[in-house]
Structures are given as C-alpha cells and as structure tokens.
C-alpha cells in the first residue's frame, strides 16, 4: 500500500468561510446589526421628538408656520390660565381617585378569583375583556350609558327602584361629569390590576398560610402579614404603570366629554391636544405636554421607590 495517502482525521471542519460569513460571526458587527432597527426607530420617533417637544414649548410655532424662540412665554401665559390650572388639578384628582379605586377593587377581585371557584380559567378570561377592547369603543358605550335622556342607570334608579324623581344629568355639569369619567376609568382599569395581582397571589406558597393557620392567625392577620408583603413587588410595578398611564390618559376623556362641560373635565393631555391640533397652537400645546413631565417623573419615582423595593433596585443582579 502506498503510505503517502493522508489518512489523518480532519479536525478542521470544511466550511467555505467567505468574508460575509466571517463578518456575520464577528460580535460587534452582529450587535450593531441587531440593535440597528430598534435604535433607529426609537431614536428618530421617540428620543428626538422628546427633545423637539422641549424646543417647541419654547417657541410660538403654529400649524403651517415655523415659529421663533420666545423663551418661557408659553409657560408664563399658562401660569395665568385658569383652564390650565383646572386641568392640572383635575388630572391629579383623576389619577389619585381612579388609581385608588382600581387597586382596591382590583385587589378584591384578585382575592375572590384566588378562591376555588368553578370555571376559574373562563372567569379570568371574561374579566379581562374591558381591558382588551379598544378604550375609545368602550368609552362610547359609557357615553351612551351616561346619556341624559336615555341613561340606563337613571332608568333603573328612577323607573325601577323609584329612588329619584328626575334622571341624572351625568355629563351636563362639572362635578357629575368628573365622577362619571373616573367611574369609567376604574371600570376599564380593574381587570389589569386584578389579573396582575392574581398572578402575584399565585406565587405565594400555600405552606406559609398553613403555618400561619397552625399558629392561630386570623384571616386579617394572614392577609396583613403574608399576602400584602409578598404582593408588594408586583404591586409596586403595577401601581407605577397604572399611575403613569392614568395620568397621561387621553382617549377616555376625549371620547366621552372632550373636556366639557365648560372645560371642567380637561386632563392635561386633552388640553394639550385641543390647543395644539384643533387650535393649531403647537407651541402652547407642547408647553402643556412638557409640564406633564415633572409630574410623571415624580409619580413614577414615588410609586416605584415608595411602595416596594425590588432586588435589582438595591444593586443586586437583574435576574
């Protein structure tokens, strides 16, 4: 036999390494390639507009006309604007009351769903519906429920229960309108709170309750000492998100009252929209939107650090 035949095993895999393949195996290139679409979209349509918004709030831009720098004039005129202050006040009130309502009722619903009830999975699915359906569309249903002449609530109270003489005027005067909007917002927010808290409840080990039971703890003690502390981490995140999105709410108010009657139910977001797009004062609208930022940052920090601390906030790993 000819001994010159190379019978050594090949350790190097026979890959045709073109420059393209090598490029795709280099990590910096891959990272850049993977991050490019996200970074591009977020920088152009999120970071840049955020800065642009700050700039616009310092100009007198109107629709179709490039404005010039006017310093803090927009903010100064807002300072003397009772409509703006009313919107600030109502936004805070709306956020505070609606969030409290959502979390109290949502926690209650979560606790109820955590019992052994028949058709639990089905119930959980049904409960989420108000949150899934487009807000504007369910808001229109609420608008119809709040109709001055044909409100079904008024019908029940006046014609069925005979508790009142006249139909309610839900959206016709400031205070009833404000409360009506809060009720609709709470209705829409309960499912999110309930389902997230339910997920939190299900992670609590039943052995803790067993131990407490053996130690003779009452139902309230179990709730106060086991359920609440162990629910805190998920509660703080849900609270942060809920406060954030309630504060910057737009759809519900725009669909039901559009800020009326007499500008009494304007949120900062709806006022910004009204001034900027139909009113075409882009600069002033941007100033209103920018004034939301300090509140948002404050509310977020308060909820996030005030209510519950999580591992990675204390400098631990991110896992």
């Amino acid at each position, binding site marked *: 036999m000819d001994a010159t035949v190379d019978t050594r095993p090949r350790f190097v895999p026979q890959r045709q390494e073109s420059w393209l393949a090598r490029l795709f*195996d280099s990590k910096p290139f891959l990272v850049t390639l993977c991050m490019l679409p*996200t*970074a591009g979209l977020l920088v152009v349509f999120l970071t840049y*507009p955020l800065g642009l918004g700050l700039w616009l709030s310092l100009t007198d831009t109107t629709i179709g006309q490039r404005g010039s720098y006017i310093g803090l004039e927009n903010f100064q005129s807002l300072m003397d604007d009772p409509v703006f202050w009313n919107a600030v006040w109502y936004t805070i009130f709306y956020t505070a009351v609606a969030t409290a309502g959502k979390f109290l009722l949502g926690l209650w*619903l979560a606790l109820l769903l955590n019992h052994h009830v028949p058709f639990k999975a089905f119930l959980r699915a049904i409960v989420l519906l108000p949150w899934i359906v487009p807000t504007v569309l369910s808001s229109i249903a609420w608008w119809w429920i709040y109709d001055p002449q044909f409100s079904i609530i008024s019908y029940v109270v006046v014609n069925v229960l005979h508790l009142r003489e006249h139909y309610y005027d839900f959206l016709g005067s400031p205070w009833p309108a404000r409360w009506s909007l809060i009720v609709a917002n709470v209705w829409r927010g309960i499912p999110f709170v309930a389902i997230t808290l339910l*997920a939190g409840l299900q992670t609590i080990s039943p052995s803790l309750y067993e131990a407490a039971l053996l130690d003779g703890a009452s139902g309230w003690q179990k709730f106060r000492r086991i359920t609440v502390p162990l629910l805190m981490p998920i509660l703080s995140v849900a609270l942060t998100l809920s406060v954030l999105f309630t504060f910057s709410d*737009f759809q519900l108010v725009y669909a039901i009252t559009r800020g009326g009657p007499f500008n009494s139910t304007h949120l900062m977001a709806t006022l910004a929209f009204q001034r900027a*797009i139909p009113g075409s004062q882009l600069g002033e609208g941007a100033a209103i939107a920018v004034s939301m930022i300090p509140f948002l940052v404050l509310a977020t920090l308060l909820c996030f650090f005030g209510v519950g601390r999580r591992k990675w906030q204390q400098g631990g790993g991110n896992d």
Partner: protein
Amino acid sequence: MTEPTVITAEEEFQVIAGKTVDEPERLSWDSRTRRVITVYIPLALFLIVLLFPFYWMAITSVKPDYEMYDYKKYNPFWVHSPTLENIRKLLFETEYPRWLMTTMGIATAATFLSVGASVLAAYAIERLRFKGAQHVGLAIYLAYLVPPTILFIPLATLIFQFGLFDSPVALILTYPTFLIPFCTWLLIGYFKSIPYELEECALIDGASRLQILRRITLPLAVPGLISAGIFAFTLSWNEFIYALAFIQSTEKKTVPVAILTELVTGDVYQWGSLMAGSLLGSVPVALIYSFFVEYYVSSMTGAVKE
C-alpha cells in the same frame, strides 16, 4: 393549571383535623352560606358590572329606533323585535369596511415591524452579551414609560416634515415607539428561559450565530413571539391619539378614530350605528384574544413581573 390557594391549605388542614372536604371553609357557623356571601355574590356583582357595558352595546346595536328611545313601552334590557338595520347602515352607507381594512393593515404592518426589531434587539441584549447591554435594556424599558400623549405634538411636526402626514405609513412608523419597548422586554424574558447551554453546544459544533438564532433560539421562543405579536396587534388596534392627530382624510382613518369623528355628527347621535360600530370594531381583538387567552395573561403578568 395547578393553582395552589389559600383554600387548599385550609382544606388540607381540615382533612387532617378529621373534617370532610365537603365542608370547605370555616369551623364556625354555616360555612356554605358564608362562602356564598363572601365569594360568590361579590364575584357575580363584579362580573355584572364588568360585562354590562358590552351587553348594553350589543343590545343597543340590534334595537330598532322606536324601541331604543321608548323605555315606557319596551323594557330597555331586552330587545323585542331585533333588527340588523343599524349594522346594514354602518356597512353599506358609511366607509366602515374600509376603516376596518385600514386598521387591520396598519396594525399588522406595525406588529411585524415591531416584533422583528424586538427579536433582534432582545437577542442582542440577552444573548450576545455585549458591553453595556444592561444599560441598553434599561433605556428601552424607560422608553416604555414615555406616554404617547407627550410625544404626539412634536411627532406631528416631524411627520409633516417627512411628508408622511395623512398617510398610513406615519402610523406604521410611530406605533413601534410603544410596541418595541414592550415586545423587547417580553422577549428578553423568554430568551432568558432558554438554556444557554443549547447555544454553546451549537457554537462548538460550528454553527454561526445567525444559524443559532434561526435554528435554535427562535423556534424555542415561539410562544414568546406569539405573545408579543398578539399584544402588539391589540395595542396598535386600540391606539388612538396618533391616528387622531396624523390622519385627516375620511377614508384613511382607523376604526376608533373614524367612529368618533365620522359617525358622531351634529347634535343627534345615531346611537344604534355608534354601538354597532363599537361592537364590530371590538370583535377582531376579542376574537384574537379568545384564541390566545393564556398567552395574553402570561405576557401581561410576565411583563410586570420582569
């Protein structure tokens, strides 16, 4: 689903204590009555309140006008002679089918764009482990906390400069600003759950990183992709303020905007058509939701737990 709960613990305890499981709750007074009062009645009330607006929407949309506005003669909670007139009017006398198609197209395009970008970003952050990946992840999370209501004014001017005003492309490009952060965080969570060893094996076997992503990571992350996809679709279907600000011509509007701006005209509201429009506009998301309930719940709670 295994869902250990408070009651299981108590039941176990009662079994140990020699009680039968038929007597589920307390040792005190009639436990069945107590359970009905503390659990079933509140639960039923919750369900009635949460579902009533949908019932009211549905029943109104099939009522003829003379019934809708006469509570004395007809019980408002029921429909005596149901009619499809409202729905017919909506479908054939307005541009509703067109609005539905537009919304569908925009939502689908925005979803694919966002999920595609998010998969790559999440893979880079979680798996390529480059320097500063954690900070990039945090920045993307912060982006999720920026509400659209403070962005729409500068975005409107930007869209105008790009010449995209009144074009569906404007919406397809701006929806990812809130979809990408959400999807990326969801997918990072999913990628975390895939054992790293699988990829190491593939690397040792000589697979390229792109092959690994395509053949190993992505197939394993399919549930995550579905979650991200349906969530993104729902969020874009529900989006309102951008669509309201960037689109002007009637035929290009999305369903939520069109119902509010085109169907609400004058002082007399056509409640029948409005309710029919709201109901039909909710059907697509409700359908998708009913098929993927578990994905929804897991992604919603997963994103919060993360």
